[in-house]
C-alpha cells in the first residue's frame, strides 16, 4: 500500500530524514517507535506532503503511484489522512464546517459528533482553545468524516487523561476496523502508520509490525510487542549497539 524508498527530507535547513526505507502492506497496522527528535513526525508529515518537509531524494509510492511531488489535497483525495499531534488553530473556521467539508456532503458524522463528545464544539473555531484531549477527539472526528484508506496517527494518546483514553482508543479502533460511516464499496481494514511512545494505543488496536527510528533512519523492524518490551527494558540506547541494525 505504502512504500518509502531512500527518503531524504530537510526541514528548517537541516536534514532530518537520511534515507528512510519502509513498507506498509494493505490492511496492515504499523507502529513507529523512536526517541524524541529521531524524525518520526517529520516522516508522517512528509508522507502527507506538508510544505515544510523538503524532499531532497527518494520516493514515496502509494498504491504503486508516485506521490513524492503531489500536493497535500491530492494525497488526501487518494485516501491518505493524518491525525496531527499539534494541529494549527484556524480562527474563524468552525469545526462543523471543516468536518462537513471533509465528509464531502455526507453528514452522517456530524450527527455522531456527540459520540466523540464534540457536539458542543461544532460551532467553535477549529482547535482554538481546545485542550489536549479535545484536539485528539476533534482530529478523530475529522478523520472519521474523511474516511481515509490509510491513516497516519501521530501519538494519538499523548496528552489525554486516563478517563478519555478509552474513548480515543475506541475511536481509533473504529477508524481502522469499523468506520461506521464508510461507504459499502470500501472493504477490508484501513491501513495505518502509528507513532506511539508509551504503547498505550496498542491496548486498542492490533498492530502487525513495528519500526524503530533513530537519527533519521529506520533502525530495525519486528513484532510490535517484542520491540515495545525491549524498549521498555533497555531503552533506545541499545539501538546503537544492536546487531540487527541492518534490516
Amino acid at each position, binding site marked *: 500500500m505504502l512504500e518509502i524508498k531512500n527518503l531524504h527530507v530537510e526541514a528548517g535547513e537541516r536534514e532530518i530524514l537520511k534515507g528512510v526505507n519502509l513498507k506498509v502492506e494493505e490492511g496492515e497496522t504499523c507502529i513507529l517507535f523512536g526517541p524524541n527528535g529521531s524524525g518520526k513526525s517529520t516522516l508522517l508529515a512528509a508522507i*502527507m*506532503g*506538508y*510544505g*515544510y518537509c523538503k524532499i531532497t531524494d527518494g520516493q514515496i509510492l502509494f498504491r504503486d503511484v508516485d506521490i513524492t511531488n503531489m*500536493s*497535500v*489535497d491530492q*494525497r*488526501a*483525495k487518494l485516501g491518505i*489522512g*493524518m491525525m*496531527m499531534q499539534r*494541529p*494549527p*488553530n*484556524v*480562527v*474563524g*473556521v468552525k469545526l462543523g*464546517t*471543516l468536518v462537513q*467539508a*471533509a465528509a*464531502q456532503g455526507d453528514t452522517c458524522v456530524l450527527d455522531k459528533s456527540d459520540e466523540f463528545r464534540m457536539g458542543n464544539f461544532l460551532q467553535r*473555531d477549529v482547535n482554538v482553545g481546545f485542550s489536549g484531549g479535545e484536539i485528539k477527539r476533534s482530529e478523530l472526528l*475529522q478523520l472519521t*468524516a*474523511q474516511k481515509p484508506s490509510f491513516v497516519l496517527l501521530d501519538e494519538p494518546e499523548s496528552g489525554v487523561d486516563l478517563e478519555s483514553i478509552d474513548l480515543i482508543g475506541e475511536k481509533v479502533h473504529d477508524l481502522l476496523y469499523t468506520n461506521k460511516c464508510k461507504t459499502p464499496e470500501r472493504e477490508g481494514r484501513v491501513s495505518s502508520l502509528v507513532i506511539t511512545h508509551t504503547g498505550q494505543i496498542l491496548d486498542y488496536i492490533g498492530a502487525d509490525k513495528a519500526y524503530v527510528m533513530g537519527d533519521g533512519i529506520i533502525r530495525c523492524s519486528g513484532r510490535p510487542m517484542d520491540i515495545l518490551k525491549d524498549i521498555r527494558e533497555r531503552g533506545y540506547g541499545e539501538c546503537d549497539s544492536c546487531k540487527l541494525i541492518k534490516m
Partner: protein
Amino acid sequence: MQTNKDVNEIKKALGKKGAYGPDIEMEKYKEGTYTPEQIKDLSKTSEDVKDRLIDVGIIASEADRSGTIVFIDNGMSHCSNKIQEGVEILSTKKALAKYDWLKEYNWKAMDPAKDKYTAKSYLEDSDGYFVWVKAGYHIKNPVQTCMLLNKDKSIQNLHNIIIVDEGASLEIITGCTTSKHADESLHVGVSEIYIKDDASLSFSMIHNWGKDTAVRPRTVAILGKNSKYVNNYVLLNPVGTLQSFPVAYLNGEGGTCRYNTICLAHKGSDIDTGGSIVLNAPNTSAEIMSRSITRGGRMVTRGRLVGNAPGVKAHLECRSIVLEDGGVTLAIPELETSVADVEMTHEAAVGKIARDQIEYLMSRGISEDDAVSMIVRGFLVGGIKGLPDNLRKEIDDAVEKANFGN
C-alpha cells in the same frame, strides 16, 4: 443653515486638504444631479440598479426592513416607512422644514470647516437622509439607506442626520455604490449621528464602488449615558481612493462603542480607513477591530482611542493579511490619555496567510483555493462581535467572488 461658524471661514476651508489620504481636486468633477428618477417601487426598477442595491445589502422587496430611503446622486429617489410609529424617515431638507428643533442637530456634531469635503457639503446645502427614532421605541427590523452614484465624473454630496432618542434602539444598513458607467465620480457623505441616553444604534455600512471612484465619507457620532453604538464598515470590492476616519464621542457615563472594519485592498485601490473613539465620560468602553487583506493595493488602517475619564476601558486590534507582494499595508494604532485610571490596550499584526493552516485544511481533501477562501473568510469575521447575519453573507459572497486561490 445653522452653525456658529462664520461662512467666510467655511469658504476658506474649501482649500483645506483632508487630514489623511490623497488630496482630491474637486474642481475636476461635474455637479451632481439634484432631480433623479423617482422610484416608487424598488423591486420594479432596472436590473442594473437592483443588482447594485443587492451588492450593498439593500433588499429591493423591502422584506424584513422597517423602511428604505434611496438617494441617487444628490437627490432623493425613494422613501418608504413601513411601520410609521416611532420612526421618522425623511430627507434632511424636509425634516429641517418640518421640525424646528432639528436645527440644534444640523451641523452641530460635524464641523463644516473640518476640510474641503465637509465645507463643500455645507456650502452646497446638501440634502441627505434623516432617520429619527422617538424615545423608547425599539425598531425591530433595520432601516435601509442607499446612496447610488449615477452620473459619471460628478460629485455626490450628501448630509445625513440620525437621531436615536432616549431609550430607543435602531439598526441601519446603509449601502453606497455607483452605477457601472459612473466609475470616475466622487462621493462625499457627511453623517451626524446622535445616540441619546440608554439608546442603541447598530450602523452597518457596505461600500461597493468602481475601480476609479473617489470616496470621502465624514462621520461623527455623539453618545449619551449608557448608550451603545456599533459601527460596521465593509469594503471588499475595488475602489480608486477611499479615506474615512469616523469619530465617536462618548460623552455620557457607561456608554460603549465598537468599530468593526473589514477591508480588502485590490491592486489599484488606495484605502485609508479606521476611526477614532474619544471616551470623555467615566466608565465608558470602546473597541476598534480591523481586519484587512492587501492584494496589491494600499491599505492603511488607523485606530485612535482617547481616554479622558477614569474607569475607561478600551481596546484596539488591527490585523492584516498580505496576500501578495507589492502594495502597502500600514497599521497605525494610537492610544492617548492623561488619566491614571484607564485600561487601554492595542495589538497589531501584519503577515502572510499561514501555510500550515492551508495545508491542514488540504489534508482533509479540501483544494488549496477552497482552503485559502475558508481561512480568509474566517480571518475577516473571526472574533468580530455585533456583525449582522446579512453582513456575514455579503462577506462570504465577496470572498467567493474574489477567488483568492489564484
